[in-house]
């Protein structure tokens, strides 16, 4: 959309994009929330690094880290972060990668839904392994 006018259309009308354009459609809102989710992905990385650091420092620091994590403010932050991480993960596993990946089975291309289902199974297995390692 170059802004120069041609002699034939000297008076184009160009509507401005409204500030709240992202509230106009559910998909736009989801997109903006997904962009925002990267902040929470970064926060989880920082949180994990702090945890690793606390573990490395010894039991005293680890206990202090756990107490800090259990404060209402931190709990609220992490619950919100978890919701955003889930939105992020669901987008990647079930919407993006089934469209981006071309998987062939016996020469035939698998439909996106099958790839999404495969991702779900892989996710469940990874979660089961994590649960086994932590709880088992």
């Amino acid at each position: 959309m170059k802004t120069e006018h041609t002699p034939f259309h000297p008076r184009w009308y160009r509507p401005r994009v409204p500030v709240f354009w992202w509230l106009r459609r559910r998909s736009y809102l989801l997109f903006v929330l997904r962009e925002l989710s990267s902040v929470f992905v970064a926060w989880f990385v920082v949180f994990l690094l702090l945890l690793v650091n606390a573990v490395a420092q010894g039991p005293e620091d680890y206990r202090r880290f756990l107490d800090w994590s259990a404060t209402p403010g931190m709990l609220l932050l992490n619950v919100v972060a978890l919701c955003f991480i889930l939105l992020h993960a669901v987008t990647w596993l079930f919407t993006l990668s089934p469209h981006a990946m071309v998987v062939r089975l016996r020469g035939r291309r698998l439909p996106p839904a099958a790839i999404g289902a495969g991702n779900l199974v892989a996710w469940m297995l990874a979660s089961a392994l994590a649960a086994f390692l932590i709880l088992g």
Partner: protein
Amino acid sequence: MADRIILRVTRYRPESDTEPTTQEHEIPLRKEWSVLDGLNHIKDHLDGTLSYRWSCRMGVCGSCGMTVNGEPKLTCATFLGDYAPGPVRVEPLSNFPVVRDLVVDIGDFMRKLPRVKPWLIRSEQEPPAAGEYPQLPAEREEYEQFSMCINCMLCYAACPVYALDEEFLGPAAIALAQRYNLDSRDQGASERTDVLSAAEGIWACTFVGECSAVCPKDVDPAGAIQRYKFTAAMDSLKALLLPRGAR
């Protein structure tokens, strides 16, 4: 079903208006009438000054894209009966400058399209006497979906990235580049890389997905872009890790 419906049509007369206005017309509501038929009725019987584009009336030419009740639609494939009892709002496509009434200028797309070289590129052109380039049905299937694009611009009208960043190459241009990249007869993928892999190419896309949702031909431009992101990322990785001969 009521036998009449109101069409609220956007009017913009550049010689006298500073911004668009809305005109209401009551038209017959017939089961088989599309929104385009309604506009044609207005043009033929109520107000001959209304301007809009159309040609084939059967979802092939891609001329009659407009915004119907807020959604980008091909008006020839959108039926008035589905909007009964109305009113039905008909506006020009979003994200393009309006020339007059429902006509938008798509010059921006026309300038961008040739940049992705949407034609078969051969490293060495063979003379016509050498015969055609054969292709298996399975090879055709690889790109067939992307070849269905009719350049109707609904994907650009639905794309918020294009609305905010006019430099974005856009969904249809990238899908059409993939149409040739995935064609077994084409050898020009590397010539399209620079334009496609630029910041205003595939990487500007944030996967909103609306382009694929509104596409009347199931081209799935969002899928084409994500696929090319994967290809481009793998190519960059190979260029970084592998010696030149092994790429």
